[in-house]
């Protein structure tokens, strides 16, 4: 019995849920590490060198290779993890390298005078970071962060290689069971593009919100 296009949507939507979960988890897990990397320049020479090596590896090699290394290396470390965990770990370590650049630029954009003034007022480094640097940096970084999330959704399609049933993997399964690869892959492609556009729209919405609020102050 030949399945029609309508039958493939539940499977694809299920895959899309996995895709979004993995991407979001990686984005959030990568953020603290990225922040550490972004502030590594303030540390000693050893820390800077380590951060440099980290960034060079995660930016200079293909994500697919990184993913496979993490997937195969974890059992060696005695960690028998679900492929989905390996996928999230790999993508989080990867996005940390790219997010760190966003945070660094965002923190740099804050006028030095503000931090000096805060120091004069006796605010602690922690307070300065949380209440002066972070909120301002967030606004300038938002477009880049939305871009990174879009990149993550795209990159997460590679987790299909380690048998995680994300949107791409689901499309492969549907293609194999319906013998209509064109329909399956084209549908999945449309879903990816739609999600990317949706993310861009949400980003614009938040941006407008934030700028309204700052104008009102």
């Amino acid at each position, binding site marked *: 019995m030949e399945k029609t296009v309508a039958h493939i949507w539940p499977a694809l939507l299920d895959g899309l849920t996995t895709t979004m979960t993995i991407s979001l988890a990686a984005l959030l897990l990568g953020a603290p590490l990225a922040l550490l990397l972004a502030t590594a320049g303030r540390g000693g020479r050893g820390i800077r060198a380590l951060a440099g090596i980290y960034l060079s*590896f995660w930016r200079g*090699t293909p*994500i697919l290779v990184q993913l496979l290394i993490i997937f*195969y290396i974890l059992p060696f470390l005695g960690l028998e993890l679900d492929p989905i965990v390996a996928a999230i770990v790999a993508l989080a370590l990867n996005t940390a390298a790219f997010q760190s650049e966003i945070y660094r630029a965002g923190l740099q954009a804050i006028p030095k005078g503000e931090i000096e003034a805060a120091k004069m007022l006796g605010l602690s480094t922690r307070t300065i970071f949380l209440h002066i640097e972070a909120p301002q940096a967030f606004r300038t970084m938002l477009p880049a962060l939305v871009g990174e999330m879009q990149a993550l959704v795209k990159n997460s*399609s590679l987790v299909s290689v380690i048998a995680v049933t994300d949107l791409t993997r689901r499309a492969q399964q549907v293609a194999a069971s319906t013998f209509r*690869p*064109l329909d399956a892959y084209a549908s999945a492609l449309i879903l990816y593009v739609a999600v*990317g556009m949706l993310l861009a729209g949400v980003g614009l919405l938040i941006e407008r919100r934030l700028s309204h609020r700052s104008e009102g102050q």
Partner: protein
Amino acid sequence: MTGFIDDAPLYLAGLVTTITVSVSGIAIAFLLGIVLAAALRSRVRPTSLVVRAYVEFARGAPLALVLFLLYYGGPQFGLLLSPYVAGIVGLGVYGAGPFAEIFRAGLNAVPKGEREAADMLGLTRGQCLLHVELPQALRLTLPPCMGQAIALLKESAVLSVITLGELTKVAGTISSITFAVVTPYLTIALLYWALVEILSRLGRVLERRFAVKGS
């Protein structure tokens, strides 16, 4: 157990394939990007709208799916491609979108007065684009172009999903023969890293060579 030296020819073959498909794919993406950028600026509304839609679409599409669509979906409408050709074409159409955006920004950065001057001198719009605007835009966009080329070189690893025997595929083959899983992937990671490093050095040399004097 096969030694590392025995596997060297395999790695080398993979490396050669990675370099040839990447260079070809980047070349297609680059040239198609220029055409798309020119079309984006077209005064013919439908043309610029269609190209805008294409660029937006290409931005959100993962390369793996583009390749699946071409390689496995192609036969459904009579398009039979070898992994090699599908890989190069896939990389090209996938990479053209970002290149188009880069060139559009570059072309917009060329002062308007130059086009007006070219107009006055009797140059057609095409001549103006080819001889006045494009050379300047290319020079201005060299850094982002190199970044995009490096991104595509790294993305070429995805071509392994359509069974193309490039570096990543080679690592998979070797690991399935030798049961050593981590070493092959670390080896190719190093090779990719070296390729990326070479390309970015080349970019810096070109940037210095074509630097706009006095800026």
